[in-house]
């Protein structure tokens, strides 16, 4: 219903969807969104500049910290870029371990998303259950790497930790539990009215728009377009592992949910296959510290879609230029399209629908101005601060 006058409504920067900062300025006519202007950058940390000032080894840890959810996707993309510049062949076992970690990460990231999406539509029971089960993956990560989120598994020339034979039965047990739960959640998503009423026909992104606006990942695949870096431009051991690229053609939030739910089940199959056929041998090779002059484009299918890094080296121990484009940035134009013509009440779930990760997206320029002084804290000051809290 039109009220004949347009009202501007700011949304954010405090937590418009996930617990991360982002600002959207909406123009609404009654209940209908007629214009959207995104404003990014609240999470700028100057990471691209920081890459130029650090050595290739230090940059592994910097890449890990671009994002707190898909940390492994960023280091995979970074290390394979530098390996290509160095012309290093990865040991076969390391390639399989990278796949296993990447798929475990996809499960935990998608599970996190399903929880958030459920929360956005007021279905908090599902949110609690999914997040409880997600702990299984985090426990597996802790067993393999010692950490729940920043696993720090990748290094230039391989991986830092092996998956020992004793771990395999535990991983399989965790996957069996997850598979049963995820099948149950998939059934709920397909049949439960609480979900269907809020997701069917909401946040429409037509295939043509998805292509023109260069959408990526589950957002693109939920508009029926079969693009996945793992199968189109295989890296690690994906060219040796059979798997399906999941697509749905509903173009709405329900399709995006189904794509992610089914991808988790697909990830379980990939991990089982990889554990089964993982070759024996070394897990990393030694690499030189200086990287010869060159440039490379490296791509990975992160949980949120195509992740692309560009590296240019100048023959020293530090890169000349390092560029990161995370999948969330690629999906922002598509997101604005989805919101247009929709209801104000659907904004949160549509926003959450692309699974935005603002920390990833806002990596480059400079800092949070007001927080600037805190940035140059010493370790000692940091310890004191956290000891008090």
């Amino acid at each position: 219903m039109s009220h004949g006058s347009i009202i501007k409504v700011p949304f954010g920067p405090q937590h418009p969807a996930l617990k991360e900062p982002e600002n959207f300025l909406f123009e609404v006519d009654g209940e209908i969104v007629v214009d959207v202007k995104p404003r990014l950058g609240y999470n700028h940390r100057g990471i691209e500049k920081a890459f130029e000032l650090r050595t290739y080894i230090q940059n592994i840890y910097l890449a890990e910290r671009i994002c707190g959810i898909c940390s492994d996707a960023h280091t995979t993309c970074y290390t394979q870029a530098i390996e290509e510049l160095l012309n290093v062949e990865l040991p076969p076992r390391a390639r399989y371990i990278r796949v296993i970690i990447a798929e475990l990460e996809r499960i935990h990231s998608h599970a996190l998303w399903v929880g958030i999406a459920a929360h956005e539509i007021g279905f908090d029971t599902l949110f609690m259950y999914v997040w409880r089960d997600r702990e299984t993956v985090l426990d597996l990560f802790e067993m393999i790497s010692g950490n729940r989120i920043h696993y720090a598994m990748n290094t230039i020339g391989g991986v830092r930790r092996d998956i020992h034979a004793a771990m395999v039965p535990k991983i399989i047990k965790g996957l069996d539990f997850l598979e049963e739960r995820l099948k149950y959640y998939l059934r709920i998503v397909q049949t439960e009215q609480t979900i269907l009423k809020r997701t069917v026909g909401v946040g429409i992104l037509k295939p043509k728009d998805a292509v023109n606006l260069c959408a990526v990942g589950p957002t693109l695949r939920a508009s029926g377009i079969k693009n996945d870096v793992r199968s189109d431009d295989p890296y690690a051991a994906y060219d040796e592992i059979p798997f399906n690229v999941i697509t749905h053609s509903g173009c709405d939030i329900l399709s995006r949910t189904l794509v992610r739910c089914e991808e988790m089940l697909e990830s379980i199959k990939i991990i089982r296959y990889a554990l089964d056929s993982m070759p024996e041998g070394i897990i990393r090779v030694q690499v030189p510290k200086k990287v010869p002059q060159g440039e490379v484009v490296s791509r990975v299918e992160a949980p949120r879609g195509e992740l692309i890094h560009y590296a240019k080296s100048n023959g020293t121990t530090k890169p000349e230029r390092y560029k990161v484009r995370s999948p969330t940035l690629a999906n922002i134009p598509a997101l604005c399209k989805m919101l247009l013509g929709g209801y104000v009440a659907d904004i949160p779930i549509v926003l959450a629908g692309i699974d935005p990760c603002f920390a990833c997206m806002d990596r480059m320029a400079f800092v949070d101005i007001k927080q600037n002084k805190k940035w140059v804290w010493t370790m000692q000051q940091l310890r004191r601060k956290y000891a008090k809290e």
Partner: protein
Amino acid sequence: MEKENEIVEKLKDFLKENLVNVTIPKKRRIFVYIKKDALEEAMEYFVKDLKFKHLSTITGVDLGEEIEVIYHLSYKGSIMLSARLAVSKKNPNIPTITDLIPGAVLYEREVHDLLGVDFERHPDLSPLMLPEKWPKGVYPLRKEYQLKHLREITSEK
């Protein structure tokens, strides 16, 4: 590599003297260097004729006197074509490609913010990544701005 070679041959035929050089560093990767003035017709050819429909991102690189702008396009999500050109820092103007690829809108703004390339006819080049009060003409990813300059700017109230 058959498909890659085929694309390179087509590029050579179409671009002629506007092509500076082209390389295939590995499977599914093509780098092509074009002349600045040929940008619009080259992009139209890549997107419409060669079906490089997906723009992954635009990278800006500071070369000293010039800024290199690289368009990372992909064909069916698989073959990456990185088309590049150089603009002088004194006059960093190139036409926008947003009318051809609407998805380029934020990538162009990002390069504008951080490296100061002006995309002519772009619908909105207001700051995207940098704060509102960021001084005009300071482009943090240019090499002449060192960390200490940027720290001075961010600590000013």
